[in-house]
């Protein structure tokens, strides 16, 4: 693979890895607080629909972003009510909300626009357009660094840069703040938090809400930056890949960046079977590339690539009285 192609693929990696990263960080907050969330997919989808719809109607990507966050928050709170307030099964709640989202997004978009569950194409200010960083154009032809800066680092929408900035922010919140300490504690031993005089439900709801916000950004990115509008099932399993990345990253923020970019790289490669074929010298079925992130995750789960120990109280509703 020549350098230029590599840079091009890395550029794609960043674009495709961003929704995974946002969703992965979203999941990180929830799961660190002891609430398993396989509903990342549904939240992203709902956010994508809301963002696409509102951006189309208002003409502003920012308003769309807010709407996306709002929609995702509603789903997050439903998950919270089911799994925190009513101590329901978190996995089942997640599965249910994914279905609900998958159906209701199409219903709403169809009712509003009548375009087969799609929102109208967005352009101009209704989209988050690529930003060219300073000197990108002038440095473009500098060997090595030029293409890297121009193709991989510059030229993404603001949400991409925001997503990357969320990584250190997440780390800082988790490991350097009071909130982070309590959040991690509630995922490990809620009784310790409870007896320390802190509300378990409050913490968990806060975590779930953050998950909602981040999934909202992820979904809005899908509809208003990566693509120009919402289409049915447009998240296409990214929520599950993000979940896989979360496990791969062992619930840690920096590792989450690495894992999501790795999976983004696989997705970028899957777009370029020609390149893969040139490198591998054999015809690699595209489906093999598509399946790679999932296979990798299974290997991680199996402990072949290091053991992933989830937060100890994860998935269990906190019950004081039987």
């Amino acid at each position: 693979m020549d350098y230029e192609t590599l840079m091009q693929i890395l550029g794609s990696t960043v674009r495709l890895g961003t929704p995974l990263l946002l969703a992965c960080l979203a999941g990180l907050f929830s799961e660190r607080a002891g609430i398993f969330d396989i509903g990342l997919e549904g939240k992203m989808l709902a956010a994508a629909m809301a963002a696409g719809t509102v951006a189309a109607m208002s003409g502003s990507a920012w308003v769309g972003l807010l709407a996306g966050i709002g929609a995702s928050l509603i789903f997050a709170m439903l998950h919270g009510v089911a799994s925190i307030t009513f101590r329901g099964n978190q996995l089942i709640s997640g599965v249910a909300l994914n279905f609900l989202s998958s159906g209701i997004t199409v219903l709403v978009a169809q009712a509003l626009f009548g375009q087969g569950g799609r929102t109208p194409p967005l352009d101009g200010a209704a989209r988050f357009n690529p930003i060219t960083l300073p000197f990108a154009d002038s440095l473009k032809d500098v060997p090595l660094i030029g293409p890297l800066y121009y193709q991989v680092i510059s030229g993404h929408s603001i949400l991409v840069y925001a997503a990357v900035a969320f990584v250190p922010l997440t780390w800082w919140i988790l490991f350097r703040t009071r909130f982070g300490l309590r959040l991690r504690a509630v995922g490990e031993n809620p009784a310790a938090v409870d007896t320390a005089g802190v509300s378990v439900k409050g913490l968990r709801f806060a975590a779930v809400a953050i998950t909602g916000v981040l999934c909202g950004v992820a979904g809005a990115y899908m509809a208003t930056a990566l693509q120009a509008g919402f289409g049915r099932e447009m998240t296409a399993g990214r929520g599950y890949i993000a979940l896989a990345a979360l496990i791969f990253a062992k619930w840690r923020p920096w590792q989450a960046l690495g894992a999501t970019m790795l999976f983004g790289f696989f997705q970028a490669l899957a777009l370029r079977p020609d390149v893969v074929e040139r490198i591998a010298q054999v015809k690699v079925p595209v489906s093999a590339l598509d399946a790679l992130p999932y296979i990798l995750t299974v290997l991680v789960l199996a402990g072949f690539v290091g053991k992933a120990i989830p937060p100890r109280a994860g998935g269990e509703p906190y019950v004081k009285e039987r």
Partner: protein
Amino acid sequence: MEATANGGRQATAALSPYAIELKGISKAFGPVQANRDINIAVPRGTIHGIIGENGAGKSTLMSILYGFYRADAGEIFINGKLTPIPDSQSAIRAGIGMVFQHFKLVQNFTVLENVILGAEDGPMLNTSLAKARKVLADLSREYEMDVDPDALIEDLSVGHQQRVEILKALYRQADILILDEPTGVLTPDEADHLFRILNGLKEQGKTIILITHKLREIMEATDNVSVMRRGTMVDTVKTAESSPESLAELMVGRKVLLEVEKAKATPGAVVLAVENLRVKDEHGVERLKGVSLEIRAGEILGIAGVAGNGQSELLEALGGIARATGRITLNGVDLPLVGLAANGLTRREAGIAHVPEDRQHLGLIMDFSAWENVAFGYHNDPKYQKNALFMDNDALRADTEAKMARYDVRPPIPTLAAKNFSGGNQQKIVVAREVEQNPDLLLIGQPTRGVDIGAIEFIHKQIVALRDAGKAILLVSVELDEIMSLSDRIAVMFDGQIMGTADPETTDERALGLLMAGVGGKA
């Protein structure tokens, strides 16, 4: 803020001689009335003991005081002032600290992080941590409780974990400290250290509530003692004016027969021989460090020891639950210790019955009906099979009815789910299942935990009868009285090893206590 809170407390201090008064506290968990109209007053600056049988409602009462549970009815007065305690935050604010029976620590946090959790000084951690480090150093020095502030909880011994819990309470400037069965997990030495600490705290004017089952500790450490029975408060007396006998009587509601009536044992051939048995837990830590013992036919071997010194692992290894190395022979035949062949089923087939320590967790499927539980572990037994494919549920139900009648299980309804029987009756179901199997060797752990006196006598009789029928019995219990009165021979375990053996006729609790603490005996 803390300063004013303290000031407030001091101001009211003059008004009431009582640090705590509970009036009319009631609490039900579903059908179980754990506390019923409880009244208690604890004078400031004293150590107040609370005793009662398992399930009497002690922990529940204290959890209510600490805001962990909410009472269904009743009032709490702190220093004479009506103080509603809807949550632990309120309790902490009222100056109450609690060390739970089951510690509430985050295992993969450091000591320091556990100490500040919920009592941070601001939204940023580093300031809180720096301050806590200093305060902790002072506290450790003052009370001789050295712990490494940067150690992870999961790397600490239970004794140290308990210190962290006490430090947590002190860090929150608790004036009232509740300890729920703090010595159950400690060696006598560690327990002595704890009592020195508690006395130091008392001298500083703090009030301490101590829940324990050990009458000796009550007599030695407390000023007053309250006795609970079946969810009610029976009485509160001055320790100096009471005796262990009178307390025991209050606890169970009638005179207690501490002796079991049994004839002298006539041991026969060796039934069980264990050589150099070793067991590692899932973290790779050796919990059983080379145990060797023998039990003969017609003999009860009692294993004494502080909980957590390898007794559970010994039972599990013998019962086929835990993997082990070494050698176990039953009636001269080697039993498999590892691999698929080592399991509860093959052990039962070999003639070992097992009443586990924790009946709800291991011995029963709580959602299964009684008759399904009677087949538990014996589901392959030919007498419960209709043919090669199907189980004979009718035979099983009939068998259950018979067992229930013989063991006076109440209510005698085979289709009732196990969870709907009281603790004592659950235990009777397990004992009936295992004893009626007429095994060569009976492993029995904590046979009377949470069981009322009547049932205790019945279960003890069954054990002795089995012995008299020429079977071997391995008894594990944390109740020294039970060990002393049932066993024909006593082995004491400490730190995964047998420290020594004793004859119940000639030994006393003091000698056993030394062995249990790892002092003397074989090293």
